[in-house]
Structure formats: structure tokens, C-alpha cells
């Protein structure tokens, strides 16, 4: 190697560069260094995730109440779980939650995929319309809940007004009617989160190579066949991922529904998370609500795992 000016510069740069980590942590193995780096994260994870989880499981077997710090904590065995699983009301909240999750997912998948297919056609102004469609998901759920109460107002709300253009229905009480209230929250959630599904589907659509469609053209495939054999299989992993995220979010839906209906009328829209909050922080039945939280956690975790396995199978 000749002694060129470039080599001189490289030497200077090398001198200014920090010593390799292995040299600085002399005597430590790579594995030990890796542990040093990840240990703060692990400690944090243990402190704010794992410990509270274990503590919650413990509390679920006690009669603990957070508003009575001086009261001795009694072990009550499985009493909280027995009460929960034997309560008609709890099954009602879980049913309301399942109704909400299933319908929002179904509608959002259909509309989200439909919108993504439309936007993917790259028409003039597609960028502008994409931005417009995305606006609802950028809002705070609490704010959305509040302003939809105005839109749903039977006498002055625009929702009732528009429906009355198609017939003389009179004031339509979306929030106060037992039959309509569950749909009122489904409509709002669909309005707010369909753009999210659309966005992920759009990412999936944009990742499909054009040559697949060209090959299909050569094979004289029609539009439906192209959709069924190329578009859908390619978009499905993205769609399933979006459904996973939204499903988990909707299972623990709280703020938007509280602002919109407060869980009413009666308990018609009292989702599991709303009841959990009421039991934990209004009634202060900490042990009982911990048991409920554990049941919900196991349900979401279990369903989530099954779903992820299905997702992986689809990807393969």
C-alpha cells in the first residue's frame, strides 16, 4: 500500500473514532455487554408491565379495596371469579363488547378495503381525498364522542335531519333508544377508524407487483378473478394485521363510548372496559375488578395468539 494523502486522512479519522466496545468493556463477553444494554429496558418492563400483572392476579384472589389502605387484605380464593362468571350482568357487558367488536371489524374491513381499492386507482386528486379520508382517525376519541352526541341529537342533530329527508321518521333518538344505541357507537367507530384499515390495505395494494396483473391479463383473467387470486391474497396479511390492531383496541374501547352514551341506555352499551373502570375506580372493588381485568386479559391474549398464528399461516 502506498502512503497517499488519503491514507493520512483515514488514519486521522480512525484516531478520532471511539474505541470498539469490546475494547472498552475489556474482559466482558459479547453476551454480557448485550445484557448490560438491554437490562434497563428489562427492569422497566418488569416494573411497569410484569409486576403490575402479577400483582393484579394476586389481588384478584383478595377482597382488597384501594380506597381503604388500612384494611387488612383477606384471601378470598376464587370468590371474585365465581361472582363474575355467575353474574348475568357481566355476560351482558361481554355480549355488548362482542357485538361492538364484531360489527365494527366487519364494517371497517369492507369499507376500508373498498376505499383502498378506490384510492389505489390513482385518479386525479387521489392524494387530496386520501388526506380528507384520514382526518377522522387523527381526532381524539373523546372529542369524537362529544361532537357525535350533537350530531345524533334527535331534534337538532344532522343525523336525524338527513334520515328524515328519506321519510317522515320524526326525531330519531340514536343514543337513547335501546335498539339503536349499540349501532350508534358502531357507526361512530366505523367513521373514525375505517381510514386506518384503508391505509394498511393501501400499503398492501401498493406492494403488489404490476407484472402479476400483466400475467393475469395475458391469461385472460377477468376483474373478479384478478381480485380473488392476486389482490386479496396479497392484501390479506395487511388486512389481518389491521384487524388485529383494531380488534384489540375495540375490545378495550372506553373513551369514545363513555362520551357518547355513558354505557346507556341502561347498560345497553356498557362495554366490558366501561364496567371495569366503574368497578375499579368508582365502586373501589379492587379485588373484584382485578379478577375481571384478568379474565379480559386472558381473553384478549388468548384470542390474539390464535389470531397471530392464523396470520402467520396466511403469510406463509
Amino acid at each position: 500500500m502506498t502512503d497517499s494523502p488519503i491514507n493520512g486522512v483515514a488514519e486521522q479519522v480512525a484516531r478520532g473514532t471511539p474505541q470498539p466496545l469490546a475494547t472498552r468493556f475489556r474482559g466482558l463477553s459479547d453476551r454480557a455487554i448485550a445484557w448490560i444494554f438491554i437490562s434497563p429496558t428489562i427492569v422497566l418492563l418488569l416494573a411497569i408491565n410484569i409486576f403490575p400483572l402479577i400483582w393484579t392476579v394476586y389481588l384478584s384472589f383478595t377482597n382488597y379495596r384501594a380506597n381503604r389502605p388500612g384494611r387488612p387484605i383477606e384471601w378470598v380464593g376464587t370468590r371474585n371469579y365465581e361472582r363474575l362468571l355467575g353474574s348475568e350482568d357481566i355476560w351482558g357487558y361481554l355480549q355488548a363488547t362482542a357485538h361492538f367488536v364484531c360489527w365494527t371489524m366487519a364494517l371497517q374491513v369492507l369499507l376500508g378495503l373498498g376505499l383502498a381499492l378506490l384510492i389505489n386507482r390513482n385518479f386525479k386528486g387521489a392524494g387530496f381525498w386520501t388526506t380528507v379520508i384520514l382526518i377522522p382517525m387523527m381526532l381524539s376519541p373523546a372529542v369524537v364522542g362529544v361532537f357525535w352526541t350533537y350530531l345524533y341529537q334527535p331534534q337538532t342533530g344532522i343525523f336525524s335531519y338527513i334520515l328524515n329527508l328519506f321519510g317522515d321518521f320524526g326525531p330519531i333518538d340514536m343514543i337513547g333508544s335501546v335498539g339503536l344505541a349499540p349501532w350508534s357507537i358502531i357507526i361512530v367507530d366505523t367513521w373514525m377508524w375505517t381510514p386506518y384499515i384503508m391505509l394498511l390495505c393501501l400499503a398492501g395494494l401498493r406492494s403488489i407487483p404490476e407484472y402479476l396483473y400483466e400475467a393475469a391479463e395475458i391469461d385472460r383473467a377477468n376483474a373478479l378473478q384478478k381480485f380473488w387470486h392476486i389482490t386479496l391474497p396479497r392484501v390479506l396479511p395487511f388486512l389481518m394485521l389491521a384487524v388485529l390492531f383494531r380488534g384489540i383496541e375495540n375490545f378495550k374501547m372506553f373513551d369514545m363510548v363513555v362520551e357518547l352514551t355513558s354505557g346507556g341506555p341502561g347498560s345497553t352499551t356498557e362495554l366490558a372496559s366501561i364496567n371495569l373502570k366503574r368497578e375499579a375506580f368508582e365502586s373501589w372493588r379492587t379485588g373484584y375488578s382485578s379478577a375481571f381485568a384478568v379474565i379480559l386479559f386472558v381473553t384478549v391474549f388468548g384470542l390474539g395468539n390464535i389470531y397471530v398464528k392464523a396470520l402467520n399461516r396466511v403469510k406463509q
Partner: protein
Amino acid sequence: MRTWKACLAAAALTAAATTGATTVITTGALAQDKEITLCWAAWDPANALVELSKDFTAETGISMKFEFVPWTNFADRFLNELNSGGKLCDLLIGDSQWIGGSATYGHYVKLNEFFDKEGISMDDFLPATVYAYSTWPKGAPEYWALPAMGDALGWVYRKDWFAKPELQSAFKAKHGRDLAPPKTWTELKEVAEFFQGREIDGKTVYGAAIFTERGSEGITMGVTSALYSWGFQYQNPEKPYDMKGFVNSADAVEGLEFYKTIYECCTPPGYSDSYMVANLDAYKSGQVAMMMNWFAFFPGLAKDEAVGGDKTGFFVNPGQKIEASTLGGQGISVVSYSDKKDLALQYIKWFAKPDVQKKWWSLGGYSCHTAVLGDPDFAKTAPFAADFLKAMSGVQDFWQEPTYAELMQAMQKRVHDYVVADKGTAQEALDKLIEDWTVTFEDDGKL
């Protein structure tokens, strides 16, 4: 540059307004160690208290800071504060139902010794308010608060509509009596039905705005105003916590059914989750002929530009089998976690003075002091003063047990399920309520 400054100022104001669920007001500009914080709900009487407290600052040199939280978050916010041993509030005007828990769990300072030392006598306050706002165990001479704001559920009505000759004659033709403020719930329903859907001044109006709120305590306060008139009792007077045959008595079932009929026949469309503010909005906007609400709002209504003056009249909660009203109002307590308990006690001492209590009433606060209420001219001091006195003579309150919040949640659910969601029967709702309350008392070791 000016535009930028204006934008920044607007943004700051907007941020303050949107995040400002809590109102913080400070009177005086004295050093922080001579400052105490008073916590209460954000409503009309709180503004009157800010005005009144300026005299305290002038007299003692102790600056006052106020934390006012909207009613919808009031219980959540301050019960959490108490349960966590927070030092935010030196003085708290807490709901009457909190007294059991706050005394039992040591959130409030017991005031007996202080009252004795300062010569403050509970005999100087209306007995019903002392019982409801100050004592725990109930009726025992153990005081945890000074009665601060007397209140009860009352009614307002559109006096100008009631006076319309065509409506008078139409009502008389139908019911054989004058269209007048109702004295019983049956009359109230007749009047409400009469107004429901009627055109007045070119606008469709409705019968009555009642409490139907699900989230906090709204529908319970509304329903109990009917139940009490039907003679509802929470428990066997001879055997505490024995609720069967009392909570679900035939009269209680009838009262609950009646409240539901009023909800169904005579409220504006979409009236399924309404409490104080929603009722005020409905009334002030000319939607309803009658409205139930707390007396605390009546001074503001009497002065309201749209519906105040001669347009509005007041009446006490109608009777049915007996005459009774739902209790509102609060006592003022010293928070035991405060570092400034001595300054807070000075405020209580000052607030208990008869001349301060008179000014409190004149500013729009409801004094419980006999120097105010016992004045022969009291009934003439405001258009609703006589009704207030009448209401306070027959008030009943919800459970004041340490497990109050749990008991309240259960009742909110059961009565909302029945009245608004039309689920089951009144008998089933009250039977289930007893089951819920029994579990609560069992867990609390009371049963």
C-alpha cells in the same frame, strides 16, 4: 408579528380552555404559606363563594385558592384525591353522601373539639342540615363538617305559559281545575302531558325535564324524588340494613313505575342521559314547561335574561303519599392530609359567623344558619325562599355509608335499566337492587 402574538395568545387560551376542566381561582396576592385551597364543584354557588371569601382574605390576610371541578367529574376527582391522601385541598365542600367514608377512613378532621373551643354551636344550624352534612355515625354528636350549602331538589315552571288564558281554559276543560303548579306527582304528570308536544309561541314544547343521567348520580336523584313521595325507605327503621319490604315495597314499586311513565310521556326527545346542566339548557331554551333541578340553580334562573323574572315560578317537590324532597347540598370539611389545617380551621370559624352567613345567602349561596333561615322575612328575600324552607323540612338523603359509591353505582344501573332501557319490571329492578346492596353490605361486614 402582531398576528403571531395574537395567534399564540389564542392558542394559549384555547389550550387553557380545553384542558381546563378544573377552574383555579386565587384571591389576593399573598405569600404561599398564608394561602389555603378550597375544593368544590364548578357551579353558580362556587362563584358566590369566591366573592364571599374576599372578605376572609381581607380580614385574616390568608389568601384563598379555589379548585372547582365540573359536577360530572366532581366525585371521581375529589374522592380519588381523598383516597390517595392528596394535599391539594385544605378545605373540601364534599357531597353529603361522602361523610360516612370520609369520617371512617380519616379523610376529614373531626371538628367537635374545635367547635367547643371556638363556641360554634350546631344548634345554630338547621337540624336537618346538621344531620345530613355533618354527622357520622348518622345523628350522633360527632361532627366532620360545618353545614355550608343547603340544597334540595325542587322544580321550576314557565309561569308565563301557565298564565296564558287559552291554556288555562283548555286545561280546565280537560281536568276540571286551574292550570297551576302541581301539588302531587299525579298532578305533575297531568300538567306535563298537557304541555307535551303543544305549540307555544310557534314552537313545539315538552312537558318536563327530569333527571335521567347514567354516569354519576343523576337518575338516582331524580327517581328518589318520586320514591320519597311514595314513602320509600332504605331500610327497616328497627333493624338496620334490613331492606326487604322497604326498598322493594309496593309503594316503592309504584313510585318507580310512575317516574318511568313521566320519562316516557313527557320528556323531550332524546332525554335519556340528562342531569343538571342538560335540564337547565332545556328549560332556558324554552323547550319544557317544567324542570326538576337543585335549588342551588334557582337564584341564577330567577335572574336569567331569557326565562327569569316573571316568566319563571318555583315549586317544591310534589308529594304523593307523603311530602318529601331529595337532599342536595354539602358541608365544609378540613382535609386531614392538609399541611395547613390551622388556616383551614380559621376559615371554618369565619364562615360560621352569622353576618358572613347572611352575606352568603345574599350572594346566592344557601346558608343553613338559623340567623338566616329563622329570620321572619326570609321567605320574602327570594321568590324560591319559602319553597326552599319547605323542602328542607322534609329532606331525605341517599345512603351515607362508607360504601356509598358502590351503593350508588348499583342504583344507577338498576333504575336506568328499568326507566330508560325498559328492561324488566320495577319490582325486578328493586329486587335486584336489594341483592346488589346486600352483597355490598356483606362485603363491608355490615351484614
